[in-house]
């Protein structure tokens, strides 16, 4: 097609066309925030000026000392350094959210692909399970799980995964249903490939892009849910600093010490904002269809 070659030669000053959509304001802002957080989380032990749990009872509830003071963002009711707790909190929040997204992605994509590929009874039972778990208002199932099974990292991740796999499962099932009858799948079946090989090698690679978009938004919602549960006292054990527990501690001192509630909450907000921006950009890039309907949130 000569016209296409001509057009691309004239109208594309940038030689790497795939790079262009990556350089939007959304990606830059979101990427900077998320990258900073990852760096902060990884290097928390080096960056933090104090041990996050070290109590200095002589320096309780001190306001932020922006320049030259001992505690840049102030201290809490037990004299713990807010900045150090926030830095360590980034680590915990990001790790939990990442674990939740990866596990729920694995469960959701697998079940969705199995459900769509095999159909019939398998599909019926998986979809019944989806229907039941989906019937709980969001967060309620997580609260119920934490209430009955007790606090702890494992239970927290279980509680956050409990409903989060469903979105992947639904979308992947729908896509698998349409992929199942495509020629390349029929051809692979005719060549004698096993069902599991077809699912893993031929179907899942075709649906991974959409799952990535869902995963980004799931990460944002997992961070908010984790903070919410920790805020309610149903998250990780109290000795682990997280942004949610910091906010819970701050509640009693709200009229006297504004900095206790401001900074951890600001961190949650900025993190979620950054991830949502990246998710938006990723969606525009990978799946323009989702952009039109506004779904994916």
């Amino acid at each position, binding site marked *: 097609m000569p016209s296409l070659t001509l057009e691309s030669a004239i109208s594309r000053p940038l030689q790497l066309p795939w790079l262009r959509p990556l350089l939007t304001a959304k990606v830059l802002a979101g990427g900077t925030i998320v990258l900073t957080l990852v760096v902060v989380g990884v290097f928390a032990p080096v960056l933090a000026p104090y041990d996050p749990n070290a109590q200095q009872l002589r320096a309780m509830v001190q306001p932020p000392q922006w320049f030259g003071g001992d505690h840049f963002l102030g201290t809490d009711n037990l004299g713990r350094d807010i900045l150090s707790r926030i830095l360590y909190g980034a680590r915990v929040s990001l790790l939990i959210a990442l674990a939740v997204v990866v596990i729920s992605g694995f469960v959701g994509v697998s079940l969705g692909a199995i459900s769509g590929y095999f159909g019939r009874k398998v599909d019926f039972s998986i979809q*019944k399970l989806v229907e039941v778990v989906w*019937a709980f*208002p969001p*967060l309620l199932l997580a609260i119920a799980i934490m209430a009955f099974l007790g606090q702890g990292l494992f239970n927290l991740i279980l509680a956050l995964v409990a409903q989060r796999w469903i979105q992947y499962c639904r979308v992947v099932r729908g896509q698998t249903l349409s992929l199942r009858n495509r020629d390349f799948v029929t051809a692979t079946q005719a060549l004698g490939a096993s069902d599991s090989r077809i699912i893993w090698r031929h179907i899942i690679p075709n649906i991974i892009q959409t799952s990535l978009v869902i995963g980004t938004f799931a990460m944002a919602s997992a961070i908010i849910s984790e903070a*919410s549960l920790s805020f309610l006292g149903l998250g990780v054990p109290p000795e682990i600093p997280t942004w949610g527990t910091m*906010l819970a501690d701050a509640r009693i001192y709200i009229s006297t010490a*504004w900095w206790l509630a401001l900074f951890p909450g600001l961190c949650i907000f900025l993190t979620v904002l950054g991830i*949502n921006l990246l998710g938006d950009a990723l969606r525009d890039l990978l799946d323009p269809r989702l952009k*039109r309907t506004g779904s994916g949130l």
Partner: protein
Amino acid sequence: MGTYLVRRLIGTLPVLLLISLLVFLLIQAAPGDPTLMLLGEDATAADIAEAKQRWGLDQPIYIQYVKFLNSAATGNLGKSFRFGLPVIEVIKERLPATIELATISIIIGILLAIPLGVWAGAKPNSWIDNLGTTFGLFGISMPSFWLGIMLILLLAGFLHILPSAGRSTYGVAGPRETGFYFLDSIRQGNWLAVKDAFTHVLMPAIALGSNMVGILMRVTRSAVLEVMNEEYVVTARAKGLAEQRVLWRHVLTNALIPIVTVVGLELGTLLSGSIIVETVFAWPGIGSLLITGVTSRDHPLVTGLVMIYTVAFVTINLIIDALYALIDPRIRY
């Protein structure tokens, strides 16, 4: 339509049954012996055996489940450990507060999100679109409980213009009739109490609705954007209709299906959001009751509330489905 609803209603029953099974299994998986928890550490073996027999805990698990189901179906959700009253009574007492908060939150959300979304969608990439989109993104990214805390800090702590917690000032509200403060106060002609209830509900309602505003605004925008290019919109304009009439009468009504879907979905988020926002504002609804139940290990209360919340959520989804047919006459069940 009628047969469709009946069919959906019947289809909901097995789901409710499975939900009850899931909740029952969760209770069973709870660590620790419930009898020990109730009788205390120094109970003798004979006491425990006697209590187990009295509460039917010595029976096989499937019989316990059938009993649990039987009493739940008849509205008997057991007795709350903490309040010493039937769970259903405790919930009934608190439910109006939550419904009132959620309703006002939805009203604020819809009044804010839909006009913003319609304007943004009608003029894509204009300043109002950018403002609305940024606003929407902030609403989605901000945890409702933190927004609540910040509102308390600013409006109650620094500016002293709104009360920071509770549902009314002590002594202002008249005698309880329905439990809905607005309704009761208006019926009693107590306008001071109406104003008092309004100042109390404003901050929690904004905090609770912020997330919904964000999502609803974005969905309205994209729905309007899609409808704007339809032929009937062009026709309406060609007829010489005023732009505002085209927008609100022709575009919005046709963009309503995704909007209603999202409002329905968001009601669920609102239900669970109320749990945390009520805790922040010490709002005496069933959300803060749930947290009280959880922290005091009041299992019958928690179970009852989880069932009530879930039944409410399932019912809302059913109503939303029925609404589709009203909005879009082309949908026939």
